[in-house]
């Protein structure tokens, strides 16, 4: 078995400002080095390939989330109490609470409303000549999610910024994360106020939570963290997927034509977008007991970094992984994670992204680039920050 000094080492920082804007060349080098690569700057074992990422996600007894999934101890302590940061029974109980309003079953009732909102968003965009695809992409998550969670009208203008900050602090404690701390705390403070003053919209998920707390099913003190569970991961991620879809179809007109010719490809196109430009780069796990991955010994207490975005470009798993092709079977992509902690909101994310694509396919003839896109800087979320495009009406 390989011990630490024999494990391949990658010295460049994959969380440097430059690397988070353009991570894929780093991931390619990591995959080439091996299935387990030590990152001395971040003191973690990176898992850049598909097979090991999936195996670790499925072995949640050895690779635990309860000590945090961030790359720094501060956030790992502060995020206790969320679904993301828990194991075993605690996790199952929290997940059941968060997930039951998010299953496709529960979301069915929302489908019509979401599709109508998507259509309105595309119609509004079509009235203008060139648009920022990121604004178009933000519109649907911003109109669906806060209502669903029951977040009061007041404070909504901060949500995107707060959500992004909550992700930034899940990275290593670099400049990017430190800058985000005030906004990350802002979200927590606001969630506490919302829960304490019962400002949630009636009939919403947040309302459900507070009622469950009244009934003694959980402690009132748990409510703010659970509300953040709904909100923080639901905006930037979905925005990323929708904006990347716009960008990819603008730059791959042949793929757009395929989608126009056969809208039945839309569900798989969403999988392929999430595979190709995975909104969430990576989370970590703590190693609970001495173990090994692909012949490399990992001691208890070490951290493993599950690089979803890199696994999704692994040539050992995917043919021609750097090609965007909505005809490939992309259902096995790991962009939503996998297994016990697999994204609880993927039904909603799929619903929103598919609704946008359906609205676009019905109303737009072509999507054309109208200037260079810019990527946003965030430790965890890979998303566009600005995307000038022109929508040509059908």
């Amino acid at each position, binding site marked *: 078995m390989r011990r630490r000094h024999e494990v391949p080492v990658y010295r460049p920082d994959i969380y440097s400002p430059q690397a988070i804007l353009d991570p894929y060349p780093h991931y390619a080098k990591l995959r080439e080095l091996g299935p387990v690569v030590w990152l001395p700057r971040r003191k973690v074992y990176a898992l850049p390939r598909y097979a090991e990422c999936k195996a670790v996600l*499925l072995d949640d007894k050895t690779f635990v989330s309860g000590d945090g999934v961030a790359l720094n101890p501060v956030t790992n302590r502060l995020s206790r109490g969320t679904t993301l940061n828990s194991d075993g029974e605690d996790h199952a109980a929290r997940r059941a609470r968060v*997930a039951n309003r*998010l*299953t*496709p*079953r529960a979301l*069915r009732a929302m489908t019509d409303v979401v599709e109508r909102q998507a259509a309105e968003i595309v119609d509004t965009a079509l009235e203008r000549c060139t648009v920022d695809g990121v604004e178009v992409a933000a519109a649907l998550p911003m109109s669906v999610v806060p209502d669903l969670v029951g977040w009061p009208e007041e404070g909504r203008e901060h949500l995107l910024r707060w959500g992004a900050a909550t992700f930034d602090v899940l990275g290593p404690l670099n400049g990017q994360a430190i800058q985000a701390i005030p906004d990350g705390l802002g979200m927590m403070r606001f969630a506490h106020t919302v829960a304490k003053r019962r400002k949630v919209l009636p009939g919403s998920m947040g309302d459900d939570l507070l009622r469950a707390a009244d009934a003694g099913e959980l402690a009132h003190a748990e409510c703010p963290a659970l509300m953040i569970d709904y909100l923080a991961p639901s905006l930037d991620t979905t925005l990323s997927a929708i904006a990347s879809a716009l960008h990819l179809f603008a730059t791959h007109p042949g793929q757009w034509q395929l989608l126009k010719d056969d809208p039945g490809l839309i*569900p798989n196109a969403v999988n392929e977008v999430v595979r190709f430009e995975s909104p969430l780069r990576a989370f970590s796990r703590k190693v609970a007991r001495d173990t090994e991955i692909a012949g490399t010994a990992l001691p208890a207490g070490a951290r493993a970094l599950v690089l979803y975005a890199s696994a999704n470009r692994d040539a050992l798993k995917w043919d021609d992984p750097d090609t965007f092709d909505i005809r490939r*079977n992309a*259902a*096995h992509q790991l962009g*939503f*994670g*996998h*297994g*016990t902690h*697999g*994204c*609880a909101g*993927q*039904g909603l994310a799929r619903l929103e992204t598919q609704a946008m694509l359906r609205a676009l396919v019905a109303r737009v003839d072509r999507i054309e680039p109208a200037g260079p896109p810019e990527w946003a800087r965030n430790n965890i979320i890979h998303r566009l920050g600005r995307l000038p495009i022109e929508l040509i009406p059908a």
Partner: protein
Amino acid sequence: MKISADYDRCEGHGLCAEQAPAIFELDDDAELVHHFDGSDIPPEQLAAARAAVTACPVAALRELP
């Protein structure tokens, strides 16, 4: 080969039904229907069945020997 389904864990994402429509289906209430629960998967369906097991995003399906 058999496939077990953990109905408590299943959240109805339906990716299994996309991969192996002859084996898995979601009914009108989006509840999982497993047409071969407790019985062997027909040989011509093995590949699709395995794809369904690995595609389930919450690992609710398991391959049994």
